[in-house]
């Protein structure tokens, strides 16, 4: 079994080598002979081929298609089975193209020597002497219909809702609406926290703008406004009024209690912190954010 597989691999390899060799030899020796293309009237030849549009009946597209050789220098028409012949072409090198307003075809370069030997290769306008062989007689397969139109930008509710900005705004809103119903507002500790978090939303004269916050962050952790409360995790976190609640959670000591009690508030704060302080580049702020992400 193993031997068999191995053998087939070797075969493949050899075949590949052979094809490669063919390609290399082509470059030097030029076109390979194909017989029977010489026509009665002397040095005129014919280019033959076949065009296929997969999945479409020939009668639906051939009446509007034609074969052009080097622009409109020579013209051929498609037969009812999709094959074509362009007659009366002298020797030379030509770009052969099937033109159809409905379907797109790749152009092929056909070289005809003065003795009527033919070869087909890919069109390359930049490296004009490069030879990548194509089958001759030509086999042109359409790659599908032309794309003539741009897509309109349509507007749908889902597009709107799935927008990350909208999600960031809408979800917290939902939480604000839902929170009072879920959380017991009579708990004084809870209320305190609520008030603090409301400070975030209300235009607070104490609320620092981002730049101020940044300068404070970078000017060092020992700035006067920072209130470092015990606990190893909290030491380096600046607690301006805006970030006070982060410090409160992180420095409370009893994470579990807070986690249980104010899950929603935390979540909400987390979103707010994303919206209002998108400073995730700063590692210190990151830690608080990580905290939010549980």
């Amino acid at each position, binding site marked *: 079994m193993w031997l068999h597989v191995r053998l087939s691999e070797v075969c493949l390899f050899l075949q590949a080598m052979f094809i490669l060799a063919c390609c290399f030899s082509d470059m030097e020796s030029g076109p390979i002979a194909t017989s029977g293309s010489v026509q009665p009237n002397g040095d005129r030849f014919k280019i033959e081929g076949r065009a296929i549009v997969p999945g479409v009946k020939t009668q639906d597209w051939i*009446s509007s298609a034609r074969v052009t050789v080097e622009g409109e220098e020579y013209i051929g028409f498609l037969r009812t089975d999709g094959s074509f012949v362009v007659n009366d072409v002298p020797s030379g090198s030509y770009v052969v193209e099937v033109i159809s*307003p409905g379907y797109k075809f790749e152009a092929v370069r056909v070289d005809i020597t003065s003795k009527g030997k033919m070869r087909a290769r890919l069109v390359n306008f930049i490296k004009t002497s490069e030879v990548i062989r194509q089958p001759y007689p030509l086999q042109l397969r359409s790659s599908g219909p032309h794309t003539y*139109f741009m897509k*309109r930008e349509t507007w749908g509710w889902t597009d709107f809702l799935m927008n990350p900005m909208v999600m960031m705004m809408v979800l917290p809103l939902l939480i604000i609406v839902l929170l009072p119903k879920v959380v017991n507002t009579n708990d004084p500790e809870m209320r305190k926290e609520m008030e603090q978090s409301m400070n975030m939303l209300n235009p607070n004269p104490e609320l620092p703008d981002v730049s101020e916050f940044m300068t404070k962050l970078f000017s060092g952790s020992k700035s006067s406004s920072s209130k470092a409360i015990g606990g190893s995790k909290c030491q380096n976190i600046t607690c301006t009024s805006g970030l006070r609640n982060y410090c409160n959670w992180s420095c409370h000591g009893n994470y579990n209690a807070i986690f249980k009690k104010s899950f929603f508030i935390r979540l909400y704060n987390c979103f707010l912190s994303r919206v209002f302080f998108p400073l995730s580049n700063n590692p210190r702020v990151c830690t608080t954010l990580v905290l939010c992400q549980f």
Partner: protein
Amino acid sequence: MKSSVKMAKLTSLFVILLSFFCISEAVFEDQVGKFDWRQQYVGKTLFAHFESNTQSSKKMFVATDKNIFASFNSRTGDLLWRHVDKTGPEGTIDILLLHGQDALMVVGDGRLLRSWDTNIGGLNWEVVLDTGSFQAACFVAIQDTVKLVAVLKKAAISLHYLSNGHQKWVENLPDSDAVQYQAVYSGGEEEVYVLGVVPNSHLTIIAYSLEDGEIIKQRSVEASWLSSVESSCVVVGQGVLMCVDPATLALYTLPIQAEETPEFSQILLQSLDLEVSPGFQPVLVSSQPHPARSPLSEFFLQLGPDHHVLLQLNADGYTIAPLRDFQPAFLVSFATTGKKTVAAVMTPKNETACAINLFSVDSGRRLLDTTVLFPLEPNGGKPHMLYVHAFLKKDDSVGYRVLVQTQDHALTFIQQPGRVVWTREEALADVVTMEMVDLPLTGTQAELEGEFGKKADGLFPMVLKRLSSQVTLLQAWLAHLWKLFYEARKPRSQVKNEVTIETLSRDEFNLQKMMVMVTASGKLFGIDSKSGSILWKHYLENVQPNAAFKLIVQRTTAHFPHPPQCTLLIKDKDTGLATLHVFNPIFGRKSHIALPALPRPILQSLLLPVIDQDYAKVLLLVDDQYKVTAFPSTKNVLQQLQEMASSIFFYLIRSEHGNLSGFRLRKDLSTERIWEVVLPTEVQKIVAVKGKRPNEHVHSQGRVMGDRSVLYKYLNPNLLAVVTESTDAHPERAFVGVFLVDGVTGRIIHEAVQRKARGPVHFVHSENWVVYEYWNTKSRRNEFSVLELFEGTELYNSTVFSSLDRPHLPQVLQQTYIFPSPITTMEATLTEKGITSRHLLVGLPSGAILSLPKMFLDPRRPEVVTEHSREENLIPYAPEMPIRTEWFINYNQTVARVKGIYTAPSGLESTCLVVAYGLDIYQTRVYPSKQFDVLKDDYDYVLISSVLFALFFATMISKRLAQVKLLNRAWR
């Protein structure tokens, strides 16, 4: 090496990205047909056939002088399919024969024989025929079934099978140097006959065996009066050759198949009481309804331009009986259905119509209830050909439809009882030149405009006038609203939005214009640019077929109450003599203005910005003695010309001498030569000369570069781009030259030579750039090259440009790109103020029109991207120009053989009107910088208004809630 490849890949990626995001000028699918339309044409009909002789058949087939084979739906006149062959003699259709499903065609003077499947419009087979010019072809039947086609060439006859095109046999014709073989005949026998003539000596008849091509009989008959079989002989009855001789005024008959050596028997026309109109060459018309049977024994003899006689050859083979005399009768035609053959005859009825009647061929009696009327247009051509489609009705009587071709190439299809089913203006297949003219203002609009023009009426009357015009506006608006309301109640099918000349008026943004099209046949058309409907047509009868046309708008619609005025200069190419046709472009009516006499050949015409007292621009015509004629030439104009003479310059090109010369006008309307440039004709020939378009505006004087300095454009309005091609066509030595010449001083500003290149060169000259396209013979590809001229970072004289005072030559930048397709024509977009970025509209042989941003053709595209180039939005250089199907402004509405693209500005700065013409006509609008000055048509009114309303209500509700909350808190 590797890094450079990587770099190239990166840049190409960048280009692709850029082209995706920055320039997304394309059509949206819902815009299809919204402001664009296409009309397809085929050209002047040479052969026409109807599908089959049943009443329900819908197809008809035509072959035209534009080398086109097409199929129409005869109910609507729409094209079912169309095959466009090569232009020129290699694609000409020599003959079209129809048999059942197959259409046989000989192409290119006997080069190819083609068989088409008419059902699906595909090719059955195509064979190459032996060399030799084509003479005649006919179907050949074996035992009552048509199996073969015989093709007669100058020196050979060949038979081909209908099923696959294979050759049955080919035989050389004996003595083909002396004998002109002109006709081939087969009547269902075992032989095929070839008729040849030695002019004014004798007639040769050769019978070939169908089986193997052996010559069975060969005879020659004395016929010293006969010069051409083709023009004066037909076969009638049981193989009787019937000839007419205009000299002796006699008919000659000769049985072709007779065994013994026969002679022509003469029948004098006098003996039949027939008389030929003086100077008229009599013509015989016969019919062979089925190739397997012999022709009819009845035939028409045309004795004068409107005189036809129906004759019958008696059974004895050499006596003739007249059946009916038709005078006057313009056209006659035979038609066969089943076993019945009828003759259709067109007779003039009155000034505005012709009547067509059917006659029984056997007796010459008129068939009852077969009259149809063909309306004659006042400014149309006369009827030229009659194609009749006869069929048997259910009650076994003969019904028919008729296709009339007029001299102006129009096809009219008429059905019983006299209803015109459709008309095709095939003259539009060959548009030579066109202009777009603004539509006039409506009466009320014009009145409003007039109010501002007049002055010194006093305050009170002015206020009154203002009020009254406001009232009329209000009235018009109310009427419009009422109309809308009234029409909304009616079903949509009943509402007709037909455009007529009377209802034409300018729209808000001047997007609807009148397209004045001049065709090669001499027929002028006025087409509404919005709907494509032909609003007026005017056929100029005595226009030579090779005339050159130039259409000039002398007065636009802006000068109410003076009507707009267009002048068509028609120049005979052989003699150079010119005539003028002055008309109103909105209504097509000829103006009755005294035209100047033009006895000398005209070399050049130029439209001056000088205006006469009637606001018409002055047209100067320069004749071959360099004398100038002004039109209009009133005293006022001549006086203005004298004052301005020293600043009027013009140029003349004589490409046969390689001579380009500049002239100046003198006060006495003579001219003096100031400069001359001679390009030796042994080396190169002048192919084309183009100046800039006079209605072009350039908005910005320069380009701001990355370092915030300004590169000023060299905007010389007198600059001419002269393109030359080498006379040596060898691929190694061929070249294309581009010269930029100042038209006033003759100074050569720049010259560029593209070695190893040949034409055809297509080029556009605009603003400060010239874009040209040529064929690179070495690399066998098309290349675009762009030349851009800059003054530098400082302007020499920023207020006014004078060719006489420009000491510094401009800096010229050039870059070249590969274009992966040949092109057929090229034009640049044009807008009102020139603020919008420019696009090049490129017509491709596939019929697509590519809108290529000028940004891609910018010689300052850098090879290495720098900070500055990025700031300037320059695309990095890539050798190959992209062609993306999204840039095709006409999506799948291809325009076959695009010959010209006409661009015109509209009232909107963002919008440019485009008309592409060739075989087809396509009209659309393009927005090179998108629609920045109007709301886009996908603007979401619903979303915007719903969001606004939602926000409004949300604020209301939240306000209320807040109030309630405050109140509650206060109570607490």
